[in-house]
């Protein structure tokens, strides 16, 4: 844990109380901060501490607290430590800083989070549609998106299949057609 302690000291010296630090376990450090400091923190980690690899950006919906948690995970090829940099943003007006000028691949993560959670990133350039197509509902990864009611609203049973009966029978009943003898044996 020596490297982790040195890392925590370095970040503390630079940011003081603005960043809350904790060693989660061997090779994992959690750094909680706010959205005004996150850009400086990530830049500092990348430029000064050697955390040049952005491993992941994740988002968790804490609907009970009315917050979104954004997690920026960085990694250093020298220390081999992952830092989980976290910020919490308000769920009512979810806006976060854009960091794709620090790591260009952040653009993809941000586009996905924008689409799936409805979080806006200041100045993010890129097509709005990433995975979903013609999505009109609330962002689907939010906790208040009800998958079951969406399915009931969107999809329907094909007419004639409500009770899983044979389609040929339904058609025959509707049109008065004769079902050929050879096909009758398959009907229930």
């Amino acid at each position, binding site marked *: 844990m020596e490297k982790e302690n040195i890392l925590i000291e370095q970040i503390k010296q630079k940011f003081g109380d603005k960043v809350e630090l904790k060693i*989660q*376990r061997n*090779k*994992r450090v959690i750094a909680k901060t706010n959205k005004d400091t996150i850009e400086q923190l990530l830049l500092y980690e990348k430029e000064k501490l050697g955390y*040049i*690899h*952005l*491993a*992941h950006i*994740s*988002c*968790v*919906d804490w609907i009970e607290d009315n917050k979104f948690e954004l*997690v920026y*995970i960085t990694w250093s*090829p020298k220390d*081999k430590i*992952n830092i*989980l940099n976290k910020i919490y943003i308000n769920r009512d007006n979810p806006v976060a800083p854009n960091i794709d000028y620090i*790591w*260009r*691949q952040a*653009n*993809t*993560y941000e586009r996905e989070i924008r689409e799936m959670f409805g979080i806006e990133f200041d100045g993010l350039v890129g097509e709005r*549609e*990433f*995975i*979903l*197509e013609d999505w009109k509902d609330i962002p*689907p*990864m939010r*906790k208040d*998106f009800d*998958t079951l009611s969406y399915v009931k609203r969107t999809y329907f049973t094909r007419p004639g299949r409500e009770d899983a009966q044979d389609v040929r029978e339904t058609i025959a009943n509707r049109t008065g057609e004769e079902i050929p003898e050879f096909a009758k044996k398959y009907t229930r």
Partner: protein
Amino acid sequence: MRKKATTIYLGPQHPGITGNMMVRLEVEGDTVVKATTHVGYLHRGFEKLMERRNWLQSFTIVCRICVPEPDPNEENYARAVEEIEGREVPERAKYIRVLVLELSRIQAYLLWYGGQAASTGLYTMGQWSIGDRNYILDLFEDLTGGRVYHMYIWPGGVRRDLPKGFKDKAFRVMDYLEKRLDDYDRLMFDNAIFQKRTQGIGVIDPEKAIEWGVVGPPLRACGIRSDVRIDEPYEVYDKLKFEVPAFKGGDVWTRALIRRFEIRQSINIVRQVLEQMPSGEYYNKIPNPHKWALPPGEAFVKTESARGEFAYYVVSDGSTHPRRVHVKGPAYVHAITLLENLLVGQNIADVSVIMNSLGTCPPEIER
């Protein structure tokens, strides 16, 4: 005079990848001037589904996230759950997990051999390697009951012990494959066409590789020795002897050489695991899955898959269901930002060569 650019839609089905993904290419003559990746053909909403299922039910979904290589998903998910809960895993289960992961790596590389060779026109190679891959799938069938999706590595250990006669069979398959690799070399690596089509193509700048998020064989082909198995050893990798190659070059040819070297290492790892495997329990039983709640917490775990670092970010809120399971596969970066940049200036014919060399796998982008 500037030529007029033409737009070509490559995909969603094409030979460069396993899965469905479209790349919109703007070309002048034969040269790509702009490439844009479009995904959305495979989205199955697994991450959302997992939030509605309990911890054990979610385990049956994770392997389906990546078709060519499902096992790193299972292992990652199981290890994340164990880390949050603090559950111990028996030593024998750890060895069996490494065995499965390495067999999975070998079969993924054999699949890659087929794809990479076919993208340069060497179709015989694919017939051979995918035929030989079936021997690995036979081993999986004996061990897990499934050939492609195994649902075998679960929280607490593995689902079954090794069946009778498995060790002997596995040794025989490894001996056979090792001999076959020499045939592959003659057919693929000694082939002048393959060399010409891959050398100097799709070069990644080694200075920028880590910053751009490159992982796995493409990163090691830039001369950077980075592998989760040595950087942060999981399961029993710290007890095994193997080499992680790093060659300079950064092109498709070097990436192929890395995989050629690694498949031999994986065969050695499988042998070591089979020899060193201790006897004992293979499963630390979990409680009733319907009432099995994990303590609040989070885990970020990583595995080295055949295509690079595979990571899971799992959050528990103390309930019987996951709060969040976020999957990050190597293709998330390789197939979008990296690919879009690498393709600029390349010939149209080299697009699928480059895609294959990066291990593009759209199912893990969309989950």
